[in-house]
Structure formats: structure tokens, C-alpha cells
């Protein structure tokens, strides 16, 4: 019961940041999925979705991560040409709001999965011209997901992902196994 309540906006410490975070991601997805209903101009939809994806990438990396969960990552070039990836985590004393954290990690991981499914769909429907756009989306959202996971090596991400997976798969397994067993033994 407490888990359901934890996904409400009113408990968040940074509702505006959360709103923008969800807003950009949802806007990119919806524009891609429903854009063709409103206009037949491929170029226009492509540009809008790319700009939304870029805005979402920048926003997640530079604003959402540090405000909601106190994590940040970037890449520096050293003078001799090496590429340095830096993953920064906040002071352990910093209080991180539970709702923010749950929202952040859930949406962070589910976005690349959704775009991945859309990529599969585009391949199956043989729409290669849209596939280029979806691949960009997958790369950008997956990069953020992986980088923030790396920032949070000792932290909450694994706990939340594991608990969600366990709950969903337990429910599925129960229904599946229950039906199977009743059919086999019920006659």
C-alpha cells in the first residue's frame, strides 16, 4: 500500500524538475507514435523528436539527476587526448526524497526499454527511415540509464529494480502456473 502512494507528485521534493523530466520523455514518445496522425511531414516530426530527445538528454543529465538523486556524470578531455568519464555522487548526508528516487529510477530504466520495443516494431514493419530516429532515442536514453547506474554503484537503483522485477514476475508466474496446474489436474 505504501508503494502505490509513493508515486504521487505531492510527495516529491522537486515537483517541477520531476514534471520536466517526465514531460520531455513523454513528449518525445508521443510525438513519435502519434505524429503521423497530425502531419504527413516526416522531416518535421524527425526534427521535433530529435530536439525533444536532445532536450531530454541534457535535462536528465544536468538537471534531473542532480536535483532528484544527487548524482552527476560527464566527460572531460585531457590535454593529451584521453577521455575521462567522471561519475559524481553526492554527500551521503544529503537527504534524497523517496518519491523522487522511485520516480527517477523507474522512468530512467523503462524509457530505453520502450524505445527498444519501438525499434523492434520499426524493424518488423520495415520502416527503416523511422528506425534511424528510434536508434537515436535508444542510444540517448540508454546512455543516461547506464551512466546513472554507474554513478550509483552502491545505492538504491539495484534495490528498486530488483523489487519491481520480483513483484511483477511473481504475479505473472502465479497466474501462469496456477492456470497450468488447474488445467492439468482439474480435468
Amino acid at each position, binding site marked *: 500500500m505504501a508503494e502505490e502512494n509513493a508515486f504521487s507528485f505531492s510527495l516529491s521534493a522537486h515537483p517541477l*524538475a520531476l514534471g520536466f523530466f517526465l514531460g520531455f520523455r513523454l513528449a518525445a514518445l508521443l510525438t513519435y507514435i502519434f505524429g503521423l496522425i497530425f502531419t504527413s*511531414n*516526416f*522531416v518535421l516530426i*524527425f*526534427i521535433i523528436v*530529435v*530536439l525533444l530527445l*536532445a532536450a531530454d538528454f*541534457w535535462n536528465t543529465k*544536468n*538537471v534531473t539527476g*542532480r*536535483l532528484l538523486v*544527487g548524482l*552527476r556524470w560527464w*566527460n*572531460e*578531455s*585531457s*590535454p*593529451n*587526448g*584521453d*577521455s*575521462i*568519464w*567522471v*561519475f*559524481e*555522487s*553526492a*554527500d551521503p548526508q544529503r537527504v534524497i526524497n523517496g518519491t523522487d528516487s522511485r520516480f527517477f529510477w523507474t522512468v530512467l530504466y523503462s524509457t530505453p526499454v520502450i524505445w527498444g520495443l519501438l525499434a523492434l516494431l520499426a524493424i518488423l514493419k520495415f520502416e527503416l*527511415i523511422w528506425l*534511424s530516429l528510434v536508434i537515436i532515442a535508444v542510444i540517448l536514453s540508454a546512455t543516461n540509464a547506464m551512466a546513472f547506474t554507474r554513478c550509483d*554503484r552502491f545505492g538504491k537503483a539495484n534495490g528498486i529494480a530488483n523489487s519491481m522485477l520480483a513483484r511483477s514476475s511473481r504475479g505473472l508466474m502465479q497466474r501462469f502456473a496456477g492456470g497450468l496446474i488447474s488445467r492439468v489436474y482439474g480435468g
Partner: protein
Amino acid sequence: MDTRTVVGDQIQDRRFAGGDTLDEPVWDTLMRDVRAVGRRVKEVLRPKVDASIDAESGQIVREWDLWGPLIFCLFLSLALSISAPAQQSSLVFSGVFAFVWIAEALVTLNIKLLGGSISFFHAICILGYALFPLVPGAIFSIIVKNMLIRFPIDTVLIGWSLFASMRTLKGAGVREGRVVLAMYPVWLFYGWLGWLCVIT
């Protein structure tokens, strides 16, 4: 702060220990990046060759970002697709967009494989920012249909792009005899895009 090296890139974990940028207002973050983009555009395109300023300018571009390349690439693709025949325009758009990014990656890979001591994203940043002169070229091609007028103007613009990118790459630290080998894909890259502006 611990540092490890993985496939040639270093990875650092840092604990934020104070200072004000972790909790800064979003506006500050935004403005900082916007100003950085503006500085980089001016830096990559500045035609003056002054050795004493080079160290500082190197620092400015070394902090790379891909906003400039994205915006110029979008404008270029858009302009070229507008002046393309109607049934080809979405193909031209996505073709040019894909070409720019894939070619930039290949040119950078070429430089790295020749032993260039420049970071991958840094090189892509420079190549992307130096696309800027070709954007007015492509927009000009929408207005002027005569190839004979387009040709000299686009040649000048290609030259500007080449000059800007080569000056900023500065041979990218490849060995002496191989500088031309590393640079000629750059010439091909801008030359091809300039040619597209002429024939579109």
C-alpha cells in the same frame, strides 16, 4: 577520487564534497552551457591565427559539447531537403543527417587509428562546429538556383570550414608524415557537403 583506465578511457568516481554547482539553479546550468556554445562557435570560426591565444582557445574547445554540431547538422539537412525535389525531400533530409554523423565518426576514427592524440568527442565537436559556414551556403542554394553563382561561393565556404577545422585540430597530434593522411578525409567531408549545396 579513484581513477581507473578502461579501453584507453579513464574513469573517475568522485564524491561531491561541497561547492555550489550540485544545487545550483537550473537557469545557471542552462546559461552556462548556452554561453559555452556561443564561445565555441566564435572560437572555431575565428580567422585570426595568433599563437599566443592558442593555448586558451584550445582549452575552450577541449570542453566539448555536441549542441553546435546537432543544430548545424539539422539546419544543413533541412536546407538541403527544402531545395530538393518534393518526393525526395525526406530521403535527402535523413540521408544528409545520417551522412554527417557517420562521416564525422569515421573521420575521427581515422584520426585516432593514425595515432592521433585527440579525444573522440573533442574531434567530433570540432568537425561539427566547423560545419557552420556551410549552413548559409545551403540556405543560399534555396534562393539562388544558378549553379555557376553557387559554385564560387560554396568553394569559399568550404575553404572557411576547412581552415577552421584544420586550425583547431592542429594536426591532432598525429606523426609528421601522416598529417595529410589524417586530414584528407576532412577535406572529403566538407568538399562533399559543399558539392551537395552546389548541385541541389
